[in-house]
């Protein structure tokens, strides 16, 4: 039994545990906590419950994003209820096309297993490792000259390339360069965050690859690479980053490139 009724009620307890108690009341609450182990235990219990919910639900945010939601985010899809039947019709058509494609091109494409990246992913990782480590000259043309950079790379690749804007995920464009590939030149855009961590996006035109693939992941010499093929182009995003961070950036890049492709010309 407490002699003095606590000036704090249940709502205050939750507000304190959630960091939502008005600042002017926090001091008094913390003083009460010191005197009342039961109150402290309840705060700890609420926080433990929140932590458990986060542990249970956090994995959802690192799941791969379904393609239909990427389309919806860039304003290219209707509501789920309206587009459901249309979506499945398109999916069936795509499966047919893909089936034919795989039947034909599958003969010349190396079979990929987990952990055996294609030469493109390996090259992307090596190019990233080489140029990202170059403090003074990571790029040939700096971001200040973005327009010239994009024009130049577009000309050399014979393909309209764009430097996606990754400022929203904390990476600013440093610039870009041309990288020698096996047979074809590859465009490299370098980005850097506030901690001077760098990542690069590499784009190559592939006349002999068709269709599109899902994101694939490889690690080469500590550099993580997400790579995919879309519309006759191979893309790779590389960096010494956690797999999920890199994947979320790959989604942003993919979404922006898709938006470029559909923007009115």
């Amino acid at each position: 039994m407490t002699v003095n009724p606590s000036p704090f009620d249940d709502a205050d307890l939750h507000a304190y545990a959630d960091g939502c108690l008005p600042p002017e009341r926090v001091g008094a609450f913390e003083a009460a906590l010191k005197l009342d182990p039961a109150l402290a235990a309840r705060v700890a219990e609420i926080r433990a419950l929140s932590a458990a919910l986060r542990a249970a639900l956090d994995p959802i945010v690192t799941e791969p994003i379904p393609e239909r939601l990427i389309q919806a985010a860039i304003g290219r899809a209707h509501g789920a209820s309206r587009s459901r039947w249309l979506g499945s019709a398109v999916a069936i058509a795509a499966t047919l096309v893909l089936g034919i494609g795989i039947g034909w091109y599958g003969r010349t494409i190396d079979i990929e297993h987990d952990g055996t990246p294609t030469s493109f992913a390996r090259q992307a990782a090596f190019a990233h490792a080489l140029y990202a480590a170059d403090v003074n000259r990571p790029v040939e043309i700096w971001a200040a000259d973005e327009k010239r950079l994009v024009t130049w790379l577009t000309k050399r690749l014979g393909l309209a390339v764009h430097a996606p804007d990754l400022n929203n995920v904390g990476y600013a464009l440093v610039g870009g360069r041309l990288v020698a590939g096996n047979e074809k030149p590859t465009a490299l855009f370098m980005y850097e965050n506030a901690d001077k961590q760098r990542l690069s996006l590499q784009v190559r035109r592939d006349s002999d690859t068709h269709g599109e693939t899902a994101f694939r992941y490889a690690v080469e010499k500590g550099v993580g690479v997400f790579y995919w093929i879309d519309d006759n182009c191979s893309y790779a995003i590389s960096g010494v980053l956690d797999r999920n961070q890199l994947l979320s950036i790959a989604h942003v890049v993919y979404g922006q490139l898709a938006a470029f492709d559909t923007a009115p010309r």
Partner: protein
Amino acid sequence: MRRSSPDAPPLPHPDLLAAIPRLRRYARVLTGDATRSDDLVQDTLARAWEKRWLWQAGTDLRAWLFTIMHNVYMNQLAVARREGVSISLDSESAHAAWQLPVRANQVDRVELLELVAQMGRLPPDQREVLLLAAVEEMHYSEIAAALDVPMGTVMSRLSRARARLRRLVDEPATPLRIVK
């Protein structure tokens, strides 16, 4: 570089894309079903594009999307109720339906799945306040704005949600009672 036409929608693609994972989590908690939750996210994004003029550039896009999702879901619930369709959560199958990719060690995993299954038994209004406060760590005032309710309502729902969840976890309801 190509530029959008002058009458192009003002919603920023990167921000919308970046918001998807959290919208999916919110939807999963609301619907308790992986497929239906992605339908809800898609409907929410479509509505956001329809109502894009209502979003004020510079304000928190994620909070605005949460508000839209809340409204879309409440509408769907009302329609379902009117048509006599039950879309209440079946907590017995919640483990499977939520499709939780829990990456914890095996002991934790069972407990976490149980916790989430019990969370699915809370009324939707308590579930969403709990998600926004405990998981999204939004301030009560932001939650009140997103759900368009007074802050006092947020606080009382949250307190009830936690008390009820605690009871549910402490005494998990066994569907088949053994009668002696």
